[in-house]
């Protein structure tokens, strides 16, 4: 499943094969504040569940080891519970797990990796890449690690780690973390990882694959097919592409193949819709109803359009109902403009006369039409009309 990729043969002699699992950005301990009290623990739990999924995937695929390229933890200051739960899951792994400190969990003075709770909890197969440079995995296989030692490194850590690594026939996988310069152009950022240098190291046969973390979208970097971001194990934001996956990397002779496998169940989805008339309301509600796995789906709606009082009430009722089943539905106020139009006939239908009708007319004028954007008073007027509708309708 997922995307699969093969690269050209590396220009070096044939060597024994290696299969390992590349993942990153577990961000354990992360919370999403827009999730409510019900969804929040489930989301946090899903990040833990993903560890098990990764372990099982690695076992099924016969991976020699699992390489987590940074940001294993959301912060060095996460609580002991997070560490204990992660350790509990990692204990089930049948292969070594290498953890690379990233920018969220650097090896600084309060590094989680040096805290007694972590050291006591972590099972034996877990190894933290605390030194920059080469780490022997087994004879003929090494990891070239570029751990972060603080949140503010002064240069390209990966390039530093690669210095003086010989092309001596050893299979080497680079474990790095951070932005690469070909994807994020920021000349002021000296910590940016140089793609050219990575490709040079690959080209001279010093390393055979570069496994990166930090970018939450699974991404192939450059044309070699040997530089990859695995993406985060569980989605963390709406704008991530192909999150929730882990990469199984095969180095066989001079070939490389990278296969993405889904490990995270949650989805964050942005929906932009226009909402007009009773049909619009019904269609959107039907569309939302049709989404699968609602309890692990987070929606962000950007809605524009004009509704009558009754339609607005229908939409509000429908949305309230859907909120109960989705993990979360956010209405992106900044990008939404849902106007309410007041129709005299509609008022008469629901039996609003006299000064009440005059009041409704005032409110409708305040609410304004769609398209102009809605300031606070317009929003309040729309809400007031909806309330009036409920009061009247609730009584009739």
């Amino acid at each position, binding site marked *: 499943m997922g995307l699969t990729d093969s690269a050209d043969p590396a220009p070096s002699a044939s060597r024994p094969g290696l299969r390992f699992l590349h993942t990153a950005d577990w961000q354990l301990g992360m919370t999403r504040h827009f999730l409510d009290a019900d969804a929040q623990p489930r989301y946090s739990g899903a990040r833990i569940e993903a560890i098990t999924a990764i372990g099982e995937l690695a076992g099924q695929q016969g991976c020699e080891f699992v390489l987590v390229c940074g940001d294993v933890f959301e912060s060095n200051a996460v609580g002991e519970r997070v560490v204990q739960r992660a350790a509990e899951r990692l204990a089930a792994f049948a292969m070594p797990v290498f953890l690379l400190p990233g920018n969220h969990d650097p090896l600084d003075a309060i590094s989680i990796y040096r805290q007694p709770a972590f050291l006591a909890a972590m099972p034996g197969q877990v190894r933290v890449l605390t030194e920059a440079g080469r780490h022997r995995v087994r004879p003929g296989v090494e990891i070239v690690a570029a751990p972060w030692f603080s949140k503010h490194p002064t240069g390209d850590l990966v390039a530093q780690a690669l210095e003086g690594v010989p092309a001596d026939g050893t299979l080497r996988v680079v474990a790095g973390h951070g932005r690469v310069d070909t994807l994020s152009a920021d000349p002021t950022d000296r910590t940016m990882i140089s793609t050219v240098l990575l490709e040079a190291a690959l080209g001279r046969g010093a390393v055979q694959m570069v496994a990166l973390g930090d970018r939450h979208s699974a991404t192939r970097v450059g044309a070699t097919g040997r530089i990859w971001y695995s993406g985060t194990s569980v989605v963390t934001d709406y704008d991530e592409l192909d999150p929730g996956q882990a990469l199984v990397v095969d180095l066989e002779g001079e070939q490389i193949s990278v296969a993405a496998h889904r490990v995270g169940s949650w989805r964050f989805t942005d929906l932009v819709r226009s909402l007009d008339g009773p049909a619009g309301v019904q269609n959107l509600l039907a569309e939302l109803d049709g989404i699968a796995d609602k309890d692990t789906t987070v929606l962000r709606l950007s809605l524009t359009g004009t509704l009558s009082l009754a339609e607005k009430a229908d939409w509000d009722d429908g949305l309230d109902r859907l909120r109960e089943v989705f993990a979360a539905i956010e209405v992106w106020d900044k990008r939404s403009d849902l106007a309410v139009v007041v129709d005299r006939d509609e008022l008469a239908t629901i039996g609003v006369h006299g000064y*009440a009708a005059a009041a409704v007319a005032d409110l409708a004028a305040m609410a304004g039409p769609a398209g102009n954007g809605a300031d606070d008073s317009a929003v309040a007027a729309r809400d007031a009309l909806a309330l009036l509708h409920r009061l009247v309708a609730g009584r009739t």
Partner: protein
Amino acid sequence: MKIHRLLLENFRGVVRREIVFPDHGLIVVSGPNEVGKSSLIEALDLLLEEKDSATKAAVRSVKPVRADVGSVIEAEISTGAYRFRYRKQFHRNTATTLTISAPSAEQLTGTPAHERVRQMLADTLDEKLYKALRLLQATPLGQAELADSAALATALDLAAGAAGNPADGESLIAAAQRSFRLDHTPGGRPGGEFKAARAELAAAELIAQRAAAALTEIGTGLDRLEHALGRRDRAQDRLRRGDAALAAARNRKDQDEQRQVAAERADQVARIAVAERDRLRAVRQQRSESITALERRQTEVAEWVQRNDDQHAAAAQRQVRMDEQTAVLAGYAQAERRAVTAQAQARSGADRHRMAVELARLDHQLDQIGLLTVELERQQADVGAAGIDAADLRELAAAEIAFDAACRDQQAGAPVVTVAAPPGSAVWVDSRRQQADLSVDYPITEDLVITTADGVTVTIRPARTAAALTAAVHRADTHRRALLAVAGVADLVAARLHHERRRAAAAAAEQTRAALAARLGADSLESLTARRDALRAEGRTAVEDDAAPGDPGVGGSDTLLVARAGGPAGSARRSAADAAAGDALGAVDLAAATAAAVDARGLTGAAAESLDQLREEYQRVSLQAARTASTVAAHTLELHRSADQLAAARAAHADADLDAAVAAAERVATEALQQVVAFATPSSRSGGADSAPGDPAADSAARCSAAEVELGVAQRELADGATAVAEIQGRLDAIGGQGRQDEHERAQSALAAARRRHTGISRRAAAARLLFDTLTSHRDRARESYVAPFTEQLTRLGAAVFGAGVTFEVAPDLTVVRRTLDGTTVAFEQLSTGAREQLAVLIRLAAARLVADADRVPIFLDDALGYADPDRLAGLGAAFDLAAEHTQLVLLTCDPQRLRDLPNVQVISLTRADGGDDHEICSARPVATPAWPAPRPARSRPAVSAPVDPTELVPASTVPALFDAPPGHDVHRIPRSSRARTAHRPRSPAGS
């Protein structure tokens, strides 16, 4: 709602009382105080509001005191479409019975019956209006709270014809208010969930801030740690540099010190070498000098020996010569002795002769001297006689000159009187007759008396100043005279003569004296005399002697001598001749003898002298030789000592060795000095190019201490840095493992949730507020239109009470703000108690008149009109009549007589219930009433803008409700009012 019948049993003091109310009209319930009028209203409220099981104070308070029985309240009530009989027994055997007769028969008991009644009342009765239209003794005299009455509002809406909510039950605005009140306090501030959400949000923000701060502390700590590590590393670098600098400085210092030591040592060596060299030089010099001295001494000794030898030779020679001379001398001495003998014989004759000559010469000389002396004495006497010598003469001349000068002065300063005597005249001047024909000048130096022949006496006295001059003349004259007197001459001329004489005498004396002196020569008179005497004496002796020896030559002289001695004066010339003869004779012998003697003596003397000389020489030479010998001995001793010393020195150090040693010392000293010079030259020092001039030791020490200071600073910095690192690290260790991220995440989640909730509720609250505010503002605007019909009603009723032309200002909430009567406007609160009471009644009547038929409620006025005067009472009666047209208007009073005159009044009299089974059934009785009093003419009818149906304001006749008397009760029917009713507009209640 209408109350048709009310039954009380065992209610306070009432055993049983049943009252039947007419369906409408003014119903006066009268009775004495404490008969239980107010209890009727109380009982009605208890029946409708309290369950039979209620035990609250309001219920307990109605229990009769004396009997332990249940209190029964029963009422026959119609409301809306319903008509029912409702009975409750409290306290004992509690029970509730409800019998609904319309619209459909229904019977309920217990709580369902109570609930049913509550429900029926809620549906059909505006309880607020019902309560508002009462005017009770217990409550303060206020205006009815009409604004909240839904029924009134509805009625007003209808009356205003503006707007309304057709739905029954709660109005839209009430619902909106309920929504509003969900999230707001009555005052409009956030309340309920809204308030809670705000508090929750604030709390969540606080917690989130704390959590964020706690997390930030970690970040800050890391930054500080990084900083501190940098500081520590820099301090370490500095320390390293300081160490190196100190080592270098110390090395340099050591070198300098070694060099210093070496220099000092070289100095010392040089000093020693130079001293040794100098010492050796001195030794060698001394050796040379010793040698030289020895050689010189040898030479000297040799010389001295030679000289000594010479001296010895000379002494020996002298010895020989001395011996020869001694022999010569002896010969001479013998010759001399012979010559002397000869000489002595010759000498005795010569001497006698020479003495006689001498004696003669002396005699002569003495004679001459005697003559001269006499002459001199005579001349000296001459001189003494002429007593004026040169000095005297000079003195005299001077006195004369002085006198002349004084006279001249006197005459020069004195006036002159010229006395001219004519011929033939006789004039006496100072007693002297002046010769006639003469003119004589007289200087006036003293009184001048001129006397004429006539006896005229003219005395001319000199001027007083002339006296001094005259005195001077006198003095000079006196002096001159005195001198002349002393000199014994008359005048100066005589004096000069005397003087000349004296000088000539003196010159003669002088010549004599000179002659005398020449005679004397060098001798004095006495010595000459003595010598002559001596010669005479000697001459005599010599004669005697000569006579003795008998020498022929000599004998002659002796005679002469004796002759001269015998006659000195006379024989002078003779002696001289004798002497001359004698001399010539004796002198030849003597001279020869003497010459021989002299010669002999001369030879002897010379020989002796020569011998002495020789002897002296010999002695001198011998002495010299002796001295020389001793010198030679001394020198020789010295020489030997020097030689010994030299030999000893040479034995110690041979001359050659000494020279070699000196040369070596010279070399050593030279080298040592060069060494010193080398150390003293700065450019020769190592690294001299960059070293500043000065004391190298001090420089290096200063560098050393500077490096030490720098090192100390670096050490302190390092310690500080390390301490800071340790502190921060310790703090980070402590807070790093606290799971602050989790806390932060939790807090942020809670904050987000609180914010969501708050936002939702805020929006809800804002919507509700907006809706309610909008509705309220529109309703208030609508209500302002209600005010008109209400004011209309109030004005209409008020005209009857206060007189036509009264107007009222009514607020939108239907409270009366001010009353204006006869141009005087008074605020409600400022009105008199009576007026306020009357107005309170009127407000209720007006409101009652405005509500729709279905909403009408009984109006209870409890003892309300105590303050009304008869006029007002009559006016009120008209108002009552208007209001009671469709409404039960119940007045409770203890003074029915005041009300008897009211129109269409129906009276129910209550009597005090005493005794056990007192049973009273009360019903209204009509009273004879006067005709309907005409309303007072309106002075100014207020403009009515609201569309009011005029027919509503017309008193309408009541319709007697169907009254089904319960069985077993004697019920008084209320007789029909005698007053004819017009404009009867039957109402048609729904469902009946």
